[in-house]
């Protein structure tokens, strides 16, 4: 193992060590207002830097969430400057995932006829790193203009047929767009893992990526079922990678309605969670399962790429937790109710 790998592992663990703990979440959820939550977050090691300039009393919730998102990105941007191996490779994928998310929002804006919300929520830190001119996408008034704007990016090839179709029918298949963008993202990541790493390093990283895909598929499956999508359509709308969850498992998951039953089914395939937490949703279940695996990898793995990938995913979950907590506080939920929705 190279010195650089060791330093990536050490730095990733140090960053994870500064992330919010169960006690911090409990204290955050006990706050009575967004201002108090902002003041609390400003005192934590994790968010002290990014929130140093804000006035907790006047900060807008959206601005607070944007800064929290930015702080996670900053970590990887700094990592990217510090390390020239694994983080360089994966920084591209962090950008790619955020870019895919923004392209989907921009497409929804075209469908909705106004890009105001898209522009307002567009993370500006992404603009200088993304392959697509994300701000220009706001100016697209129809799907062909959109296709033209992404012409020089890899997304053109995968989205063009859908955009042409949407131009003719007037309706964009967002679910398929999402599936294609994330398939492209995971496929690129898996190919990079195969090209860059060998032996057990490659296996460990592939395992981490495929486990994430399995959990994404579980969530998509349940979400689509909730919206009344037909089982056949659900199956073709999932990401086309299978790790532990084979076709027959997917069939069974489509039939299950209850989070507890889904949990029991997933346990058969080794997706277990320790303890017996009361889970509110399938999303929470999937993230809790992922979190256990990610934490284990972060703590024990000697594979720097897998550790780095786990850090990315852990911080994403933390970001969602903070967002949920802030929303919960804003809507006046009790601290126990908010805590029960978090992945800790």
């Amino acid at each position, binding site marked *: 193992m190279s010195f650089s790998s060791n330093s990536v592992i050490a730095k990733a663990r140090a960053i994870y060590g500064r992330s919010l703990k169960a006690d911090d979440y409990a204290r955050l959820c006990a706050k009575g207002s967004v201002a108090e939550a902002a003041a609390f977050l400003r005192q934590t090691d994790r968010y002290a830097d990014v929130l140093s*300039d804000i006035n907790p009393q*006047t900060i*807008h919730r*959206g*601005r607070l969430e*944007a800064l929290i998102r930015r702080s996670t990105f900053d970590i990887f941007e700094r990592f990217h400057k510090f390390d020239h191996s694994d983080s360089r490779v994966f920084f591209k994928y962090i950008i790619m995932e955020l870019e895919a998310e923004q392209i989907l929002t921009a497409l929804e804006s075209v469908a909705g006829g106004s*890009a*105001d*919300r898209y*522009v*307002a*929520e*567009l993370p*500006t*830190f992404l*603009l200088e790193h993304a392959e697509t001119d994300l*701000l220009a996408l*706001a*100016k697209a008034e129809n799907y062909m203009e959109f296709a033209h704007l992404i012409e020089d990016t890899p997304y053109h090839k995968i989205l063009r047929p859908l955009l042409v179709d949407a131009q003719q029918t007037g309706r964009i298949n967002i679910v398929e767009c999402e599936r294609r963008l994330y398939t492209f993202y995971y496929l690129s990541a898996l190919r990079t893992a195969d090209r860059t790493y060998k032996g057990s390093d490659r296996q460990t990283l592939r395992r981490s990526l495929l486990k994430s895909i399995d959990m994404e598929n579980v969530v998509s499956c349940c979400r689509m079922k909730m919206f009344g999508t037909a089982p056949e359509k659900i199956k073709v709308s999932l990401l086309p990678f299978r790790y532990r969850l084979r076709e027959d498992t997917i069939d069974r998951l489509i039939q299950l309605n209850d989070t507890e039953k889904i949990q029991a089914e997933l346990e058969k395939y080794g997706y277990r969670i320790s303890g017996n937490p009361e889970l509110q949703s399938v999303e929470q279940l999937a993230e809790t399962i992922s979190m256990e695996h990610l934490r284990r990898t972060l703590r024990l793995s000697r594979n720097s790429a897998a550790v780095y990938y786990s850090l990315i995913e852990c911080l994403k979950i933390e970001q969602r937790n903070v967002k949920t907590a802030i929303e919960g506080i804003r809507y006046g939920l009790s601290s126990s109710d908010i805590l029960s929705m978090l992945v800790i």
Partner: protein
Amino acid sequence: MGIEKMSQLTVEGPLGKLDNALLLCCESRMFQMTEFSNAAAPQNLSQENPYEMPYNEMKNMAASLNITPQLKAYDSISIESPEEFEKYCNDTVGELAKLKEEYDEIAEALDEHRRTDSNLKHLLSLDVSFHELFNMRYVKAQIGKLPSVNMQKLDYYENKGLHFIPFEQDGEYTWGVYLAPKNDAAFADTVMNSLFFEATVLPDYLNADAAESDAVLEKIISDEEQLKTLLKQKLDDFTANHKEEFLAVFSKLKHLYECFELRKNALISNDRFTFTGYCPTKSCTKLTEKLLTIGDVTATEVPLKGKAATADVPVKLKNNVIFRPFEMFVKMYGLPEYGTFDPTPYVAVTYMLMFGIMFGDVGQGLAISLLGLIMSRISKNGLFPIMTRIGLFSAAFGVLYGSVFGIETIIEPFFHRENIWRALGYTEQPHNIFQVATVLLIAALCIGIVLIVISMTFNTVLNFRRRKWGEALFSVNGVCGLVFYIALVAGVAGMFLFGIELFSPLYIIAFIALPLVLIFFKHPLSDLISGTKHGEKISIGNFIIENFIDLFEAALSFLSNTMSFLRIGGFILSHAGMMLVVAQLAGTNVPGAEITVGTVITYIIGNLIVMGVEGLLVGIQILRLEFYEIFNRFYSGNGKSFRPVEITFE
């Protein structure tokens, strides 16, 4: 020296005298109250504390007035009942609240104006009056700050009638004004809001341009500052005038409040109270006499004998002035149980000796001692008195090693004396301590062996005293362990140091194999002696495996514990090595070297670093030896500390 003898004290009396009795016990600082046990008593006094409300009010008041609570004599205070205390609080608080309210109002207004002024400062380049700006007929204008990162997003809104004019960039934000047609004002507000624009709201009277408004605001701020200072002075005067009386009232209230809390531990029957607790025997008579003065209150003392005492009896260590600071290390590990043995003197002697040996230097030792002496006058940190003592031992051994601040030419080292180096087996005089390294390491091992043997002897004697025959005779740290260890050490020392072959078959069977066999069968043999059965039944296979592993571990621990003491010798060499580096840096390691200012400075800095780093390391290493190699063999540290009831604001 050792553990203070304790007595159990039972206090009885009429219910009306309960508070007086409790107050006396608190004031004596020599009585630890036994907590009330539900199963033991018919009734106890667990009512709501009526002093709680005035107590909390006074606590808050003390915080508002910046008064640090401290106990004061309160004989002159006639207030008694909770209602009277509440009245006192209300009267004083009423006056204080009025002043405080005025002060807070002005402070708040001042903060608000300062905030507005700091916002206004970013807009000084705006030469239009605010009145004109905010009262345009067709255009809506709003001043404030926008996160700079969102500036690039404004291009998108350019064709939608929204214009932002930046004035100044300050860190993450850009200050400016946005303009939009009045008809599209709602849209502009929504957009700017979504871009996290923070609007600055100006008071109506600031209707001139930015520079003029700034001047007006500065005048207002200056006036408010003066008023705030005046009110602060009034508050301080109020505090000064009421402080002594306040503290006396608060002290009395604190006593009454705490005593009431202690009532929960008293048992009540037929309008009479009883409470029990522990008191050092020597102070019992004095406390009993005081309690008797209350009238109708009786106190019964039952001295607690070591063997008969229960495990709940608290422990108060009693040592002379030299050893007392080392109680800190014993407490750190755990106090001894009542009726057992206090290892403080043993720790003190071994710690001071080992520190002296490992860090022997006359100059540095005296410096540490002096620093400890000065600091113990200033600070209550328990390490400083220890530094005073160990520094003296360091100086004493420094004389032996001939080292004064690392200079070895002032005093003759012991190994330079011919009779000594010849006795140590050298044919010529060793020039420095590194040449006697082997002797030092052997000496370190000898110290370790002696300390281990003493610790095992302690364990054996203590177990004999507790009548734990099995432990005393057959345990690894009992007679068998002692015989095995001494025989092994004697055999090895005889073979390598004196050329005497002790390991004859009879010697091996009697002093090495037999003790090991007895240790192996410790449990059945102990049962045989005590006539009791040992715990659960285990199979023969398990018995052999368990005891073999225990025996193996014990044998290994003898070896590792003994080797662990090599660090004593190691640190002597390390100390000498570090001082050699200092000498080299100072350039005094060659004969006839010139002493310059630089040499002196290097020596001072070098000595400070060595004292700081190595002194700390040696201190920690000795503590490690005490806890792991010595305490492990005879000491459990399961005692409970003596915590007398007392009233304090700390």
